[in-house]
């Protein structure tokens, strides 16, 4: 299998806190890769740096065999990395449908003139945006909520809407930050199915998750962060028995 994403010595510092310490990891095409670690380990920071939302302090990233510039978040999305947020960030005053339609932004063209004149090509594009959004809402199972405002959706539906919006950018790599947080057991199971389907459809998944069962059941490989550094990487069963990991989770005096 070929490499999709490779980070080399990625670092990030917040004042005195080294939130990421030379994190190097490699994600293969088509795998489900877990990123775990105790609270404050730097998992979300890894996402934020990877998607260009926070400037990195060191290291480099290769995506699809190309060096990836992290200075412009929209370029990262364009390159094919989409994400969800730990603390859901939807466009609250837009409908679920519109949220997903915004996700198509990067893959469509219409500018101001197109919007005003609305000629044939533009209308076709707009229809395609809507059709794709509808498809994605159905895929994540919230088509019935299409015309409701995002901030009126239930928590679980908001998580799914975020996934649909991220998928709308046609990502090669989908980065999910604790997608099961706040979900009940049946919702979590449905989410696991969804992630499996995504992978079957050719999307590589990077998953931050605290639900150990979910991570162990889904991921091909996991990396463990602690205090911003990678302390283990490998198959879930291996990592689980790694003494350093056990120590990180249980904590030592």
């Amino acid at each position, binding site marked *: 299998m070929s490499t999709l994403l490779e980070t080399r010595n990625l670092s990030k510092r917040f004042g005195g806190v080294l939130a990421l310490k030379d994190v190097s990891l490699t994600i293969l095409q088509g795998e489900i890769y877990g990123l775990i670690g105790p609270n404050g380990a730097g998992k979300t920071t890894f996402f934020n740096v990877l*998607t*260009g*939302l926070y400037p990195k302090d060191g290291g480099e990233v290769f995506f699809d065999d190309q060096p990836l510039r992290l200075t*412009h*978040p*929209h370029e990262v*999305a*364009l390159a094919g990395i*989409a*994400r969800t*947020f730990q603390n859901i*960030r*939807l*466009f*609250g*005053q*837009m*409908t679920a*449908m*519109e949220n997903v*339609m*915004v*996700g*198509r*932004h*990067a*893959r*469509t*063209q*219409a*500018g*101001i003139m*197109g*919007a*005003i004149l*609305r000629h044939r090509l533009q209308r076709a*594009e*707009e229809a395609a*945006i*809507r059709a794709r959004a509808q498809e994605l809402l159905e895929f994540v199972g919230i088509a019935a909520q*299409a*015309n*409701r*405002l995002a901030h*009126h959706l239930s928590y679980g539906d908001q998580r799914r809407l975020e996934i649909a*919006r*991220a998928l*709308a*950018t046609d990502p090669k790599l989908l980065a999910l930050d604790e997608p099961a947080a706040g979900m009940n057991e049946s919702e979590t199971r449905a989410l696991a199915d969804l992630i499996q389907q995504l992978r079957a459809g050719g999307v590589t998944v990077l998953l931050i998750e605290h639900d150990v069962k979910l991570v162990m059941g889904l991921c091909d490989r996991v990396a463990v962060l602690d205090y911003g550094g990678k302390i283990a990487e490998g198959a879930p069963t291996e990592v689980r028995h790694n003494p350093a990991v056990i120590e990180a989770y249980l904590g030592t005096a």
Partner: protein
Amino acid sequence: MKIRGVLLIATALIVAPFVVEATMGNAWVRLLDFALLYVMLALGLNIVVGFAGLLDLGYIAFYAVGAYFYALLASPHFGIHWPIWAILPLGALTAGVFGVLLGAPTLRLRGDYLAIVTLGFGEIIRIFINNLNAPFNLTNGPKGIANIDPGVVTGLPIPSTILYYYLFVVLVLLIVFIGLRLQNSRIGRAWVAIREDEMAAKACGIHTRNVKLAAFAMGASFGGVAGGLFASFQTFVSPESFGLMESVMVLCMVVLGGMGHIPGVILGAVMLTVLPEIFRQSAGPMQQAIFGTVVLDPEALRMLLFGVALIVVMRYRPAGLWPEQRHRREFVAP
């Protein structure tokens, strides 16, 4: 049903100035004209503040740019006399360029900080206009530019205020049309997305810098058109017309009417132009009738009541008088 509604509105728009002129006099037609200019301004600002969520307190600068652009190209000041149909589109373009120039340095700012900086820019433009009479006399300074060519044919049996009314209505309709189309488009959605959550918008692949600049440019160009019309209507421009209070007024129209909602913004602009005037004219006689004398200067009273009205509306209808009824849409299929 829908066609009948359109016909009704069209008829009302067509006969309105004649009815107003016959019943209330030409001064009120003039006021109607001003209301239409403010509608254009409010719709332009609505793109920046209502859609993209960028609080702009210097918006009137683009009105000034449009007005002076017209004044310089159609007055004895330089002896240039271009026709209005040539100046307006260029004026819109020029104001749009100013929108980008003044917007670019503010891209990283939000909320209060953005408001303060745009306020400063607005004042800078006004002060420049005020002082650009030396070493080269571009704007004629505080004296302003007079004898500007009118934008409509004069000397007809129909009063020019009514002709301006029709000209303004046509441009308002054009601006409304453009506004509606933008709202339901890829760019319009990107504006709202930035307003709702800029970080998430970036992660969705939106080039927030360009999309914000597009909002500044579009909003400014509407202001530029309104400014050009203003100059042709008044046949006189001076820096005084473009102070901070004007920016605040237009913002009030947008907020009071219903930010981001085109019909609401139109309502806000018309109300805030017409109501104070009605009030101003009736406050004097009313006091005369009640107290036998004018106790409070109508002008001061007007501002007082304006403030009170604003507070009341914001307290009881924080989303504006006519906000977008998005919630209704939640229960109907697209």
